Structure formats: structure tokens, C-alpha cells
């Protein structure tokens, strides 16, 4: 099962003819870790949103295992982790409830991500960005997951936490042969993590 973007173009409504992405193609195979690097405003996050099915391309297709991504029902095998975890978690819901939203989460994951049981009864406003990001990671690592799109997920974390999270994600991805797309400005990070690095051309 591969994840493919074929000649994808996309522009946000209200921008007229201007396109954020023009004729972009990208293929991610299982077990691959693709790095994506480009200056700000080039459409890295937009590409992630398209690949995860949050937005539909104006032209071109997103295919997963040869079928259009939009044809998958229920849990989407392609999941995206947002850059800002505080917007990706409902502020009025206790984190335990958010975590269990799509079904129970393995205790092993919580331990590996150092999610303390006390956090489960807290609201998102009470935890830090790094702590919240662990919840965002834990809730997408479900059995149906095939591809994980990481949109600058550790940009606001300290180095030790970054290393912790990435080590865990690498192990998990290797074990389950997940395809990873890693977006980052940090070239050193990409070099250390990825099997290949792609650039978004203007």
C-alpha cells in the first residue's frame, strides 16, 4: 500500500488563481521515512492536509493503495499530527476522553510516550504543548494506521523531549512498517531521521 500524490494543485478559496501547490507529486512507501523541507509559506502544511484528506486538491489525485483516499470510511489509514497540539484537542474535553474517542488506546503507548495517568483527567489548557503533543501522537497510533504525516510536530519542544518522541516514533514506525512524512525546518533532524529528503519547489 503506497500513498501517492499525483500532479496535485491546490489553492485556498479567496486567493483567486494563485496556487499554494502546483503540480506536486510525491510517493511514500511503507517503511519509508520521507523528509520534507521548504521555506515558510511553500505549502508544506497544505500538502500534509491534502495527503491526510483534510482538503481536496483542485486538480490531481491522492491515492492510497491505488484507490482514492476519499473512498476510505471510518478510521483514515493516513493520519496527520498537527503542528499546534493545543488546537487539535478539544478545550472542553478531558484528555482521557479525547484519547479514547476512537476506541481504547494501548497502555504500552501511554507508557512509551510518558503520559502520566494523572493527565488523563486534565483539560488541554492545563498541560504544556509538549505534553499535549504526546496525546495527539497516542490517539492516532491505532491498528489501522499505515501512514503518519508529522507536520513540525516537535518544533516547540526542548531537545530532550524531541529526542524521546522521535526515538519512540522511529521504533514504532519500524515495527509496524509505517510510512512517515516528516516536515521540518531542521535539516539535521531530517538527515538523522529520514531515508530520503524532498524539497518543495516554488
Amino acid at each position, binding site marked *: 500500500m503506497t500513498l501517492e500524490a499525483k500532479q496535485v494543485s491546490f489553492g485556498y478559496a479567496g486567493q483567486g488563481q494563485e496556487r499554494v501547490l502546483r503540480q506536486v507529486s510525491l510517493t511514500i512507501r511503507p517503511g519509508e521515512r520521507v523528509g520534507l523541507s521548504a521555506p515558510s509559506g511553500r505549502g508544506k502544511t497544505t500538502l500534509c492536509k491534502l495527503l*491526510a484528506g483534510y482538503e481536496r486538491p483542485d486538480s490531481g489525485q491522492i491515492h492510497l493503495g491505488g484507490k482514492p483516499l476519499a473512498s476510505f470510511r471510518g478510521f483514515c489509514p493516513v493520519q496527520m499530527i498537527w503542528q499546534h497540539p493545543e488546537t*487539535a484537542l478539544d478545550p472542553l474535553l478531558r484528555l482521557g476522553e*479525547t484519547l479514547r474517542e476512537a476506541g481504547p488506546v494501548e497502555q504500552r503507548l501511554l507508557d512509551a510516550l510518558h503520559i502520566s495517568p494523572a493527565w488523563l483527567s486534565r483539560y488541554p489548557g492545563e498541560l504544556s504543548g509538549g505534553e499535549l503533543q504526546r496525546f*495527539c501522537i497516542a490517539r492516532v497510533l491505532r491498528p489501522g494506521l499505515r501512514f503518519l504525516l508529522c507536520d513540525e510536530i516537535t518544533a516547540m519542544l526542548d531537545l530532550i523531549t524531541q529526542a524521546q518522541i522521535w526515538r519512540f516514533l522511529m521504533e514504532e514506525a519500524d515495527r509496524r512498517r509505517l510510512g512517515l512524512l516528516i516536515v521540518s525546518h531542521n535539516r539535521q533532524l531530517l538527515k538523522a531521521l529520514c531515508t530520503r529528503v524532498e524539497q518543495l519547489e516554488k
Partner: protein
Amino acid sequence: MKKDWNRRKSAAVLFSACAFVLCAVTAAGLLLSDYAMETDFTQKNLSPSLSHLFGTDWMGRDMLARTLTGLSLSIRIGLLTALVSCVLALLLGTAAATLGRRVDACISWCVDLFLGIPHILLVMLLSLAFGKGLAGVVAGVSLSHWPALARVVRAEVFQLRQAPYLLAAEKLGVSRFAVARRHLLPHLLAQFLTGLILQFPHAILHEASITFLGFGLSPEQPAVGIILSESMRYLTTGKWWLALFPGLSLVLVVLLFARMGERLRQMGNPASVHQ
């Protein structure tokens, strides 16, 4: 154990106290409704005293009993109409924002239409159409107050639908119904409660004004609106207690209701846990 007593708990206590007072007034009014109609011409136009705390009117009726009965009626009508119009607003606003462009255009057109007609005229027309009296007042007030809130709810739902946490929940395979219940409703609750609180005095005042104009309740019913409009005629002759006490009690009831809504919202807000 002093630390256990936080603002959340005192909010709960205050909320219950307000609710209790409002319930007590409603119940007292119901029990006193017969006494409120009793006339005694030997006791007419008495200023406030120990036997008649709020005084008596020109037919010797006890004003305390009349005020309580009127408040009770007003609370019931206000609650009922505010609830009906808020639920209507919630449903229509959510429908407009989620069921596609056509439904949105349809509902938005209705909202504009309802907001375009002068409010009191609309209430009068609806009340007439439903045969005046209690049914007319309830229908008129509840069917005319939803558009403003529906518009707010619609905008709120539009905004919420773009929230990453809601989109993420959909991608995690959570059903649309569960998403609406878990992520939409709690966020709309604040709007809903504010709407309900603001609607309540509005509803009472509209009930009073269309009653005053002769399209509402019949004059023998001791509604606060009727008490106030009747007392206007006697105010110039120095019978100040006829308007003062019923008016003050109405303001008090409205304030109590507002306080109640405020506490309820405070309890629903996670940030208030630590206050």
C-alpha cells in the same frame, strides 16, 4: 478541609440557591392564585403595612399575593417561551451550518424575514393567529425570538466545523453524531445559556406589552405586565406601592435568573476548576 471549598463549589451552591428561590416564588404564586383574586372593598387602597406587606389595590386585593401570582405566571411563561425559542434557534442554526448551502439559504432567508418585521408587530400577529390568551402569548413570544440566536449559533457552528480538533475527530473515524454531541454541543452550551438568560426578561416584557395592548392575557389574570400597566393609572394619585413592589420583584427575579445562568456557565468552563 478548607481547600476543598473552591469557587466551583460556591458557584454550585449559589446556583442551587437561586433556583430554589425561583421555584419557591413559582410555587407560592400557584398556591396564592385564589387569594390574589379575592376582593375586599373595606381594605382598599391601603399602603404597605404588616398585614399587607405590599399594600392593597383599589379593589382591596392583596398586592403581595398578586405580585407573587404574577411573577409565578411570568416565570413559567418566560421559561417556556425562552426554552422553546432557544431550542428552535439551536436546531435551525445548526441545521443552517451543517446541511448544505440550500438549507442555509432557506433558513437565513427566514431569519432575515423575521428580523425585518418590527418585533412587537410580529408578536401581535402571531398571538392573534394562535387565538390570543395564554396560548397566543406563548406561541407569539417563542416563535418570534429565535432568529437572533439562530444567527449566532449558525456562525458559531461554521467556525467550530473548521476547528482542527473537530476535523481530527472525523478523521479518527468518530461518527458524525458523536462529533456533534461531543464537540459541538458543549461549545454551543455557552451561547445557548446566554441566549436563554437574555431571552427570559425579553419574553416577560413582551408578554407584558402585548397584554397591555390587548393582544395577550385577559385582564383578570394577575400577570406582572397587567399589574404594572393598571398601576400606572393610580401612580399620579400617590399609590406608589402599586408599581414599586411588583416592579422591584420583577427586576429581582430577572437578576436571579441572570445570576443562575452565570454560575451555570462558570461550572461548565474547565478553566474555572482552579479558581
